[in-house]
């Protein structure tokens, strides 16, 4: 039977890449984003390339009150959900504008947590499904360069970890995957000078997520090198770390 993938935040480069990877495997695809009608070209692309069914759905991650209705409105409850919702903002503005800070916190943590909660509860009732949250290595330790974004992603990482723990304990049949992409060439990082060896293409993220879903992995780094890097960064004593600029 055809499996269905829901991508939330489907306009993002990673969201598009994930949709393509799963469509190539034969998954039917639900693309969810604000103003989803503007994803018509992406829908056509998936249909033409892979011959799968593709539907478009409006969602507002920041509007918690709409999340139940959004999930109810889906034609079928998906087998796999990938949440690629996120917003980095600019650190300087995040420091000075509380509105901006709140937007980053809500876009990366509250919104995704709300959507994943509703979906987790429905999947738990059905007793099957996989939830994939795209978090960030920025959430592994707060750094001066982007600690607002990092704090929000730390929240999401902890949320995913707890959700996985809850759903594994009662043998619900629902699995939770945490993805830590590291640097990726996307709209969000455009203009940044990123080291090529540490930076993945969006398509690599798609492949890594498909593999993690198939193999029921818990936490995945897209490029393995990041696992070592983050291990090192987490282990720097705070009295040293606070003086460093990395």
């Amino acid at each position: 039977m055809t499996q269905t993938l829901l991508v939330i935040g489907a306009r993002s480069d990673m969201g598009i890449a994930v949709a393509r990877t799963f469509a190539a495997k034969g998954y039917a695809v639900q693309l969810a984003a604000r103003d989803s009608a503007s994803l018509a070209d992406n829908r056509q692309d998936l249909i033409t390339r892979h011959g799968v069914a593709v539907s478009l759905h409006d969602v507002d991650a920041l509007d918690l009150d709409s999340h139940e209705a959004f999930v109810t409105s889906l034609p079928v409850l998906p087998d796999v959900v990938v949440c690629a919702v996120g917003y980095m903002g600019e650190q300087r503005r995040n420091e000075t504008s509380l509105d901006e800070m709140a937007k980053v916190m809500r876009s990366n943590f509250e919104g995704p947590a709300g959507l994943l909660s509703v979906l987790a509860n429905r999947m738990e009732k059905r007793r099957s499904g996989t939830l994939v949250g795209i978090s960030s290595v920025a959430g592994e330790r707060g750094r001066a360069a982007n600690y607002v974004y990092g704090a929000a992603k730390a929240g999401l990482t902890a949320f995913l970890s707890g959700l996985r723990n809850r759903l594994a304990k009662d043998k619900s049949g629902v699995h939770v995957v945490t993805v830590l992409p590291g640097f990726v060439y996307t709209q969000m990082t455009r203009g940044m000078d990123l080291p090529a060896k540490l930076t993945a293409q969006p398509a690599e993220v798609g492949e890594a997520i498909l593999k993690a879903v198939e193999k029921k992995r818990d936490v995945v780094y897209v490029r393995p090198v990041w696992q070592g890097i983050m291990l090192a960064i987490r282990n720097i004593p705070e009295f040293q770390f606070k003086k460093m600029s990395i």
Partner: protein
Amino acid sequence: MKISGWGRFPQVECVLTRPRDRQDAEAHIAGVDGDLIARGNGRAYGDSALNRDATVDMRGLDRILAFDPQTGQVVAEAGVMLADLIDVFLPRGWFPAVTPGTKFVTIGGAVASDVHGKNHHKHGSFGAFVDWIDILGADGEVRRASRADNSELFAWTLGGMGLTGVILRAALRLAPVETGWIRQRTTPAANLTAAMDVFEQAQDATYSVGWIDCLATGADTGRSLVMVGEHASLDELGAKERADPWVQKAKSKKAVPIDLPSFALNPLSVRTFNKLYYANGKRQAGSSLIDYDSYFYPLDAILEWNRIYGRKGFAQFQCVIPLDASYAGLQVLLGAISRSGQGSFLAVLKRMAAQDSRFSFPMEGYTLALDFPMRAETPALFAELEAIAIDHGGRFYLAKDSLLTPERLRQSDPRTEAFIQMRKDNGANLRFRSLQSERLAL
């Protein structure tokens, strides 16, 4: 960032931006003050897709939008590559109607260069299979241009090197095939006369291409292997091929990881040539089945083979000489190339058919292409070769060019003035400029 064409000469610091979809591209281009050039996958050899202040990388527009299995027409964004079309449509029985020697070209680049392939003598250039394009003009308007509507814009854009506007979308027709395999017949030719005879006798064949051994001189000048090919039908396949009719088994890619010294390619290619030449000489008319990738794209299997010429890069010389002067012109060219001792040991020879076009490269005759590592003396050698081609009524392929001068372009191609006038009339001369268009005063 520093970018270049495929020949890695020139390498120039350019502001490169990458819109992610059509809306983004239109908005981005509207925000560019002054002139800009669109860039595909960077497979033009020289400076065709370089603009210091605004080079627009179109590879983010990579959506395939529609396919009609009745007609083979595919509608796709300009950044979709031929490799994508092959991946998606070959297993459904369709192949690009015209393909150059690499599948890593975008549709936008193929239209702008009006590329040709091994079937030019029979089917014409890439543009012959384009039904329409959506193109963003100097006035910021997007127009659909075809042979019926905006036909002038359509005609000038094929081979117009991106200098008529930014191609956003195209509809093109694919050709139906029964398999992904090619029946190839290789014929050794002792000299240029013999090679041209093989081409003339192969006018009905779908594909034909020749490799010339540039080391052969005197009576042996033009010693070649001419390879003729046809798409194999299902019942022409052997058991091995029949198990994989669409050539889906993944093949490993060999990357050239570092800059090799510039002589690396040549002894290798000469050994390959000699082996094939003498092997075929022994058993005449060698015929074989070969997968489409190995047949059309032998160099694609070596990713980044352009690095083989070293850090200074290389230039490719490609001209076409009209049929009645082809023999004489090629003899003189091959003599000059051999005397120079600078060229690659192999040159590619191809018969072309007449083509009705505004500014595209092909004309009825023979085209010759070969690489030269970029050295201090290379521009002078190119000037010499270009003068020979011009003397014989020939012209040059702008998709390969990095060294031509405005004078020699005008001497070779009387259509140049009309191209410039068209750009003045519609304002494209102020809006769409590349380092090539500046160099050639287009």
